[in-house]
């Protein structure tokens, strides 16, 4: 889907106000432009296909319902959409209380993200990865597991055999370092 690779931010920015006004054709276009990316997002969090599909469907219902609150320019549209999809996936996951399983495999998947051939994106991603690399390896994994797979502090605590208060501290320190690195390099 080349359209999604090209990150059609401007097109999405044009579609969202129409969707907010109830334009279903615009909504269909938005679905076509973003569903494969958003499906990738929810599939990271939800391994079970039926849950991932349900989450995707509910995410699009939320996008339809919340389009009125989208503020053009305040956030990149794909970031806004992806955040809805991720939060939906995390909600769905919690609801079904998926058990921790085959975490090593999941970890590998989280670490081995395939970079898309889009110059600007690749640059942003390169910078983010560079900044991530200043963190100790286990902290990098924690951040990626939380972000990609929606692991909560509790799940990370179980995986890393540390109290969840320690996980909280580690995550927050890691994020502060990440922010310093990213914002300092902009």
């Amino acid at each position, binding site marked *: *889907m080349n359209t999604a*690779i090209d*990150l059609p931010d401007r097109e999405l920015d044009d579609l969202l106000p129409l969707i907010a*006004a*109830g334009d*279903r054709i615009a*909504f*269909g276009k938005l*679905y*076509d432009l973003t*569903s*494969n*990316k958003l*499906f*990738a*997002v929810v599939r990271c969090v939800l391994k079970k296909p039926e849950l991932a*599909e*349900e989450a*995707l*469907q*509910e995410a*699009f*219902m939320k996008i*339809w*319902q919340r389009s*009125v609150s989208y503020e053009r320019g*305040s*956030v*990149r549209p*794909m*970031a*806004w959409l*992806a955040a809805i999809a*991720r*939060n939906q996936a995390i*909600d769905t996951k*919690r*609801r079904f209380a998926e058990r921790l399983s085959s975490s090593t495999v999941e970890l590998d998947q989280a670490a081995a*993200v*395939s970079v898309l051939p889009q110059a600007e*994106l690749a640059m942003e*991603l390169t*910078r*983010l990865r560079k900044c991530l690399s200043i963190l100790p390896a286990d902290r990098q994994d924690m*951040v990626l597991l939380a*972000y*990609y797979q*929606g*692991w*909560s*502090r509790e799940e*990370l605590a179980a995986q890393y055999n540390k109290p969840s208060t320690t*996980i*909280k501290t580690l*995550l*927050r320190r890691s*994020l*502060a370092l990440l*922010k310093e690195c*990213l914002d300092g390099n902009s």
Partner: protein
Amino acid sequence: MAIPEELEELAAEYALGSLPPDEHLEAEALMQKDPLFSLQVKAWERRLIPLVLALEPVEPPARIRGAVMKAITGDSFDSATVIKLERRASNWRWATIGASAIAASLAAFIFLHTPANPVNGQRYVAVLQAEGPGPAFLASIDLVNGNISVRTMGAPPQPGKSYELWAVGGGRDKPQSLGVIDASLKIPASKLGQLDASKMRDTVFAVSLEPEGGSPTSQPTGPVMFTGKLVPTE
């Protein structure tokens, strides 16, 4: 939670997705009422988004598109959809009401959103539904911000007619107009001032079909199309 550093950390973890459920809800409530916090969350989403955008796209099954499109046009709403709405947040609950003074034959599904923040939890959601095709309107009633917003979920447009929202019962001797649901699906916030929170428990919300611009009298003149009721969980 008033310390700026803590808010920043909360925003970061919220964007990361690692918050436990209670703090996740707290962050969502803050997003609504604290513009600075909301900006912090957005800044974090922007920082992390390259990770998500870099994911290899995965084509979802084609039937999902059909399901989504049907759901928003409302012609395939069924009880499963309603149940999903209920399941979407476990702290919503739904109830059906039987006979009501205005719509004995209409089934209504009612949702109450349990306040995420108990201090100002004055948000209500009502799904207004007719018997047949499923939810028609979703009304969000926010007593704190003074907003009623209505989203159409399948109510068909009626050329030359207007939908009008009414509050019925709850100590009122006759239906109280909350306004015409206009193209932007907003009800003037001033109307809400007339709603008494203590009467919400027994208030039925109804939508009637009126001449364009709303009822010429102060009472419903057209058929009551949809009803829904807010039921407190406490």
